[in-house]
């Protein structure tokens, strides 16, 4: 895979890469590609994906009872920049 293609992939998940990082990822793709040849030997036609280990139901609908959520101060406690009750970011509309 080309360096520029890898940088674009990274940009899609909001990452900038140095040239060295992009080269290393290209090398890793190559290593992985060789390893993935084994996939071609395995017939998975008609199989369902196994997403979680067990099929048993663990989700549920909770009773409609009020719970104490985090306070506004707690929610904002880790934000780098706050204006009044909001997390603030650089202006979008100039």
């Amino acid at each position: 895979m080309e360096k520029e293609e890898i940088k674009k992939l990274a940009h899609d998940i909001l990452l900038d890469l140095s040239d060295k990082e992009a080269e290393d990822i290209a090398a890793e793709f190559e290593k992985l590609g060789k390893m993935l040849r084994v996939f071609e030997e395995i017939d998975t036609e008609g199989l369902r994906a196994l997403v979680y280990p067990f099929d048993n139901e663990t989700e549920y609908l909770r009773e409609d009872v009020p719970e104490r959520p985090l306070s506004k101060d707690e929610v904002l406690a880790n934000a780098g920049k706050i204006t009044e009750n909001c997390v603030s970011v650089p202006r979008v509309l100039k």
Partner: protein
Amino acid sequence: MRIGNAASPFEAYEKLKKANDKLNCIVTAIEPHEEGIPIALKDNVCTRSILTTASCRILDNYIPVYDATIIGRLKAKGFVPVAKTSMDELAMGGTNMTALTGPCHNPYDLERISGGSSGGSAVAVASGLVPVAIGTDTGDSIRKPASYCGVVGVKPSYGKISRYGIIPYASSLDHVGCFTTNVRDAAYMLEVLSGRDDKDMTSSFEEVPSYSRIINSDISGRKLLIFKNVLDEIEDHDVLRAFNDTVTVLRMKGAVIEEVSFDETLMKAVLPVYYLIANGEATANHANLTGIPFGERAQGKDFEEVMINSRSRGFSSSIKQRFVIGSYALYKENQGHYYRKAQKIRRLVVEEVMNRLRDADALIAPTVPGIAPLMKESSTDELDDNLISHSHLIIANFAGLPSLSLPMGFSHGLPLGFSITANPFMEDIMFDIAKAVEEYTGLEGQTKEDF
């Protein structure tokens, strides 16, 4: 050190701080304010008002405003957290060499790795600083460091211990577990930690037995399967001797033991399947690490640039690599070939193993093929270790099986581990077999206390 005769949290806190100069096993020491049983927590366990970094630069200033569910369970039983421990960045690694605070040292030889990603927790227990520590295990991250550091490391069934408040790696594979110096303590910890939690949508409704009360080393009639593909690969004579001697004793104690070979092609696929699923899930899980609502924020001229700069500075190159590859596997046009294909092969691997394990009690093997490697000889690229003697541990994560490693002996003065994997929610049987091994080895409670 055992839970029953542990030092006070105050003493443990002082010892940890002193020992850390040599071991580098902790990120944050937590000054205790009460008596109780000292415990160390991996630094991906959210602790209210206490720095929780998951060993990642973007979280280097993150102070949770809530506790993980397990913290409440631990405190209710008198445990007092005294440290947050070193780990591989975002738990993505097997050496503990990628920790933001630098590599963690093996107490048996400081030049060697602890193993990871829960290396700091393994070392804190192995060096007798605390009787118990919490770890997490997505592929082998409790059991591998347990083997390298000569302690008991347990990963229970999927869903057994709540993951609410644990900074994730890969949600379909992540498990919480613990390190102790002996099997009975591990059984007790599972009682303390396990149970349904409505805040974790994968939390199991299964009853939690009193493992430490019912534990029994009588294994007569128990059917154990030796993982032959693993044994076939191992060349280290000390590992083979320690394993085979243990098997001979288990047989003398009445266990029925046979060898089983699984399909080689499927076994070779375990690591790449894991790599695609784990990195795919990780990149999605960590899309929320933007530096905006929490975490280290970098400057930028607009909203998007702030996120790009925060993320590019906040993750190491190796994490970026994993995210890019994981994301590639998730692209709509690639999913069929990579991510979905991997999930389907995951099903085949699980069926291959369960077809035999269902009619038996446990699968056994050496945990890893040798002693802890030297730091200078260790690779942090997981793809460099595509050996079933390493990747067999991942199968328990694919299938959600309870699995542990406990000490089985030494080679050149360094610990070797014995792996036991049981059927889903059959932790009691796993502990019984482990107890029988421990009675033979006499390594119950062993630590390396020179620090």
